[in-house]
């Protein structure tokens, strides 16, 4: 073999890089297209249905001049497509319109509510991973033994419990009876410790069912990986069971876990909306339900767009994480 790097290796590397770049570009295009289609679907569902959105919002007893004012504000005299483009342009420039009930810019409303909803979802996600990782490893390592059985039975229960009911039980026990945590409300971030205390119970209620699902996925992924030939190779090299599990199985089992984690985000978000109502937290969930009861369509369509945006972006990030974790860069199609 001649000295210097063989041209074949260089070419292979360059090809890999080119594939990676193409993969990223492709995923980015899909991301943007998805966001665009999603915005069209949302706008059409909320404002495109037959009937007059303004009179729907104001109800039957609306004064004619109020109705006219709202129609003008919403641009209802314009064609539908023009209104959509106007709305889309507003979204892109950060202008979500003005709330019809609160009379303030929707962007500001959402920003304030995100300060509750985002930390809540984040804490819940971390909590569920922190619970699922050791439980899944334990169950897979002690497969078909007592501890595995106990973990599996626990997860069956965890999946079956509705998170809002679990939240109610938490409130009865931990907040009302023992008074460890506040039963609801949010004091704001000026006192971070109090704020975290207020988010603790909601986060636990959100995280537990997610952790149960994650544990089961991790366990079955690990067990499948443990049956692979390369685990036998690792054992033949002298790795102990535990070391083969953590050094070789875990990383390979992360791919299905990542998939589920990405998909779970949408459940987490939906769960957060409901949980916020149990705990009277001033997050996006409360905002959207108030908006629905007050028929504030401008707020509804913007908040839904934000939620869908979050899910789509998280899915995109999951795809990027695949590429980081898996050198084979498996593409999904």
């Amino acid at each position, binding site marked *: 073999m001649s000295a210097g790097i063989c041209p074949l290796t260089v070419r292979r590397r360059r090809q890999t890089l080119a594939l990676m770049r193409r993969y990223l570009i492709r995923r980015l295009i*899909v991301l943007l*297209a*998805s966001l665009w*289609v*999603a915005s069209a*679907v*949302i706008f059409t*569902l*909320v404002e495109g*249905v037959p009937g007059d959105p303004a009179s*729907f919002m104001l109800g039957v007893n609306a004064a004619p001049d109020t109705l006219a004012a709202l129609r003008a504000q919403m641009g209802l005299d314009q064609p539908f497509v023009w209104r959509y483009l106007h709305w889309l342009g507003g979204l892109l420039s950060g202008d979500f319109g003005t709330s019809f009930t609160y009379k303030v810019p929707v962007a500001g409303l959402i920003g304030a509510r995100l300060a509750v909803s985002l930390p809540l979802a984040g804490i819940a996600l971390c909590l569920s991973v922190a619970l699922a990782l050791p439980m899944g490893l334990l169950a897979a390592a002690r497969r078909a033994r007592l501890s595995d059985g106990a973990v599996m039975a626990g997860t*069956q*229960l965890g*999946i*079956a*419990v*509705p998170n*809002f*009911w679990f939240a*109610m*039980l938490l*409130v*009865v026990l931990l907040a*009302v009876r023992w008074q460890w945590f506040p039963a609801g409300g949010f004091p704001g971030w000026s006192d971070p410790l109090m704020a975290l205390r207020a988010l603790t119970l909601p986060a636990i209620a959100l995280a537990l069912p997610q952790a149960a699902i994650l544990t089961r996925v991790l366990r079955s992924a690990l067990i499948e990986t443990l049956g692979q030939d390369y685990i036998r190779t690792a054992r033949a090299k002298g790795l102990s069971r535990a070391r083969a599990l953590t050094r070789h199985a875990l990383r390979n089992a992360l791919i299905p876990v990542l998939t589920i984690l990405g*998909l779970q985000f*949408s*459940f987490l*978000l*939906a769960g957060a*909306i*409901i949980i916020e*109502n*149990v705990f009277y937290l001033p997050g996006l969930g409360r905002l*959207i*339900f108030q908006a*629905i009861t007050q*028929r504030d*369509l401008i707020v*509804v*369509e913007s908040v*839904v767009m934000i*939620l*869908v945006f979050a*899910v*789509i972006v998280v*899915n995109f990030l999951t795809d990027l994480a695949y590429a980081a974790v898996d050198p084979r860069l498996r593409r*999904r*199609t």
Partner: protein
Amino acid sequence: MKLSLIIGGVLSGAALLAALISLVWTPYDVTALHIAHKLQGPSAAHWLGTDHFGRDIASMLMAGARTSLAVALVAVTIGMGLGVPLGLWAAARRGSWLDEGIMRANDLIFAFPSLVIAILITATFGPSATNAIIAIGIFNIPVFARVTRAGALSLWQLDYIRAAQVAGKGRARISGEHILPNIANLLIVQGTIQFSLGILAEAGLSYVGLGAQPPTPSWGRMLAEAQTMVTLAPHVAIMPGLAIVLTVLGLNLLGDGLRDALDPRLRGRLA
């Protein structure tokens, strides 16, 4: 495991039975209010106690089972009815524009959790149980499409499919004759999972007021109404919650049991 099949069968069977019986008989009329008997604990007259209007909780749970199971069943039917053909079609045309289109559309629907769909529908049409069915049903479509496509793709690699092609059979015929029967297990198991998720989702939607409306009885709304008096009379909140937990647990155990029972590798051992 046989045990999970038995426990799962018993629990889901009990829920189904309660729902069916409630069609013709409940211990008390679920719409009749008896304020004098409100918030009673479990007794011989009211097995599970009464709620804040004095209604019999056992009767309401039976009637609520009807709503839950019906919503979940129709939603699974929608998801299977549309998702399975789409998945089969995408797999039969693997790598084509059609496949790509179906899968991207699936991804897009996945970005709309059923709660968000329900919010959108409610915002324009107002809340109803039909909302819940449509919202959960739409979310089920990509679930079944993905499971079907993944199962079908691995089967399309097998030699018996090539043998069928050599025997002159077209993609549609092969999908119906060879692919579908061999992924039926997969679909039955996924069906029970989606069924139990549907019950949870319906409860959540009704709880926040986007699902079944009064006077239709619903477990989720019972919980919502119980929330304000949970410290006064905990049983009002505990009973509907237990009903949900036991039904969902039963369906999940049934799904697990079915998966093991239908696994051809395990069945071969018995044959």
